[in-house]
């Protein structure tokens, strides 16, 4: 058997090993690469920068542990920046396993800026109902979430009484911006379709890399004011707010992983066509 034949019939565990080395190496040696901000990521950044101290945002954290590696860096960076700017946050999730992730992110970022639960941020928890819940939130948050994640009635939380012009916060329009971090359904697409246009609430999104191309039309149409796509988006945002975290660290690993996959595509095709040319059928 020739070398090219042996390569073509390579056991896939060798490929797994190559990928493991390619992804681990940058993390072990702490390799860092400069990150270029895309126009979509810049839009995301600028919309958060426009917020003033005391403004309230609605944070829809729609992902579960499957999306943690990609979206946690994004969520943490967003929370960090919002707390730093003294923006108040009302957060919730439409994913059954999403609440503890939002809770952990709050617990990681709030103490850095001495933020107090109920005054500076609120965690409403999870509600089943997908698009119906989105529309209901546009009409009355209290109808959907009478109590928060801890079972505390919303009326007893000071933040829920500090909306625009001192009004209580009872619908999405009482907040300044909808920030959605999502990995699938229900997520960005549904928020755009059910809430963005219907309630005319500015919206930005951070999503999984695989979903980002689907949301590009919404960015171009202005329905999304900014978009972070996957770990690359997280890294771009971390660079812009000068808070390098797992996004920037992970980009080196992702860079080498992408290059490895490209090399595998090229190598796979080269040996395939070489062997066909030599008249060798696939092993």
């Amino acid at each position, binding site marked *: 058997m020739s070398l090219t034949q042996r390569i073509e019939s*390579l056991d*896939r565990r060798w*490929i*797994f090993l*190559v*990928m*493991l080395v390619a*992804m681990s190496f940058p993390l072990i040696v702490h390799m860092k*690469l*400069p*990150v*270029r901000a*895309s*126009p979509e990521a810049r839009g995301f950044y600028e919309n958060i920068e426009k917020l003033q101290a005391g403004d309230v945002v609605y944070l829809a954290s729609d992902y*579960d*542990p*499957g999306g*943690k*590696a990609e979206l946690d860096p994004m969520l943490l960076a967003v929370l960090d920046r919002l707390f730093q700017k003294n923006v108040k946050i009302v957060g919730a999730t439409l994913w059954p*396993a999403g*609440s*503890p992730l939002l*809770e*952990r992110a709050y*617990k990681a970022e709030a103490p850095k800026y001495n933020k107090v639960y109920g005054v500076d941020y609120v965690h409403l928890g999870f*509600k*089943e*109902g*997908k698009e*119906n819940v989105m529309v*209901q939130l546009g*009409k009355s948050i209290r*109808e*959907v979430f009478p109590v928060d*994640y*801890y079972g505390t009635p919303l009326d007893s939380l000071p933040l829920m009484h500090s909306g625009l012009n001192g009004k209580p916060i009872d619908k999405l329009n009482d907040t300044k911006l909808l920030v959605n971090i999502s990995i699938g359904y229900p997520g960005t697409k549904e928020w755009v379709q059910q809430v963005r246009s219907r309630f005319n609430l500015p919206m930005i999104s951070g999503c999984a890399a695989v979903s980002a*191309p*689907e949301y*590009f*039309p919404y960015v171009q149409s202005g329905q999304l004011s900014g978009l972070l*796509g996957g770990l*690359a988006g997280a*890294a771009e945002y971390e660079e812009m707010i000068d808070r390098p975290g797992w996004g920037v660290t992970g*980009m*080196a690993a*992702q*860079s*080498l*992983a*992408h*290059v*490895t*996959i*490209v090399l*595998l*595509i090229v*190598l*796979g*095709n080269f040996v*395939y066509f070489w062997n066909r040319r030599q008249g060798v059928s696939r092993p």
Partner: protein
Amino acid sequence: MLRREVPILLAMIVGWFMVGEFFFPWAEPAGTEVQQMAVIITATGVILGVANVIRINLLKVSRRERDWRYSILLLVGLGVMALLGTILPVVHAAVHGGGWKIGPFNLVGITDGTLFDRLYNRVYVPLSATMYGLLAFYIASAAFRAFRVRTMDATLLAVAAIIVMIGRVPLGEKIWDGIPLLTDWIMNVPQLAAKRAILIGAALGGIATGLKILLGIERNFLGSD
């Protein structure tokens, strides 16, 4: 008759409520009521879903079907998490028995420091993230073994994929600073045009189906029975 006509009539009425609230402000409270009903029905659907999972897996175990041992694991996991997250807090609230602890573990509730929280963070999170992470290895294997540029379409796909994959990471700019610009062009022009066409097509299909439901013509959602 009741099995077909009543569901069709219900779908029509609910559909018209939803349309009505867009055009007539006086219809909004009724529309809101219907949406609240939908939230309750969806939540009830979750209970039915869980009951179905239990039924299917119990059958699998009782018949000793292939991989029945995994079904036992699933049922135990489901039972433990449901007990800790739902049943115990309700029972606890009913009897007001103070904190329920076994050693350092708080058995009641889902917040920080509870047993539910520990199982979630130390079992479910790593397992779920690992499953998602494994995709990278299978994509690499598939890229090497199956991605062949035998046709013009496949070649175009491969070239676009390679440019975008390299251009979306910082290393691309190091290789050649034109790659990110080329990536942006692919994402903002051909990709966007194709995606928009799909979105518009799907939206038109959705409108047509919606109209058929509103007029009582659409029957596919009833199933084949």
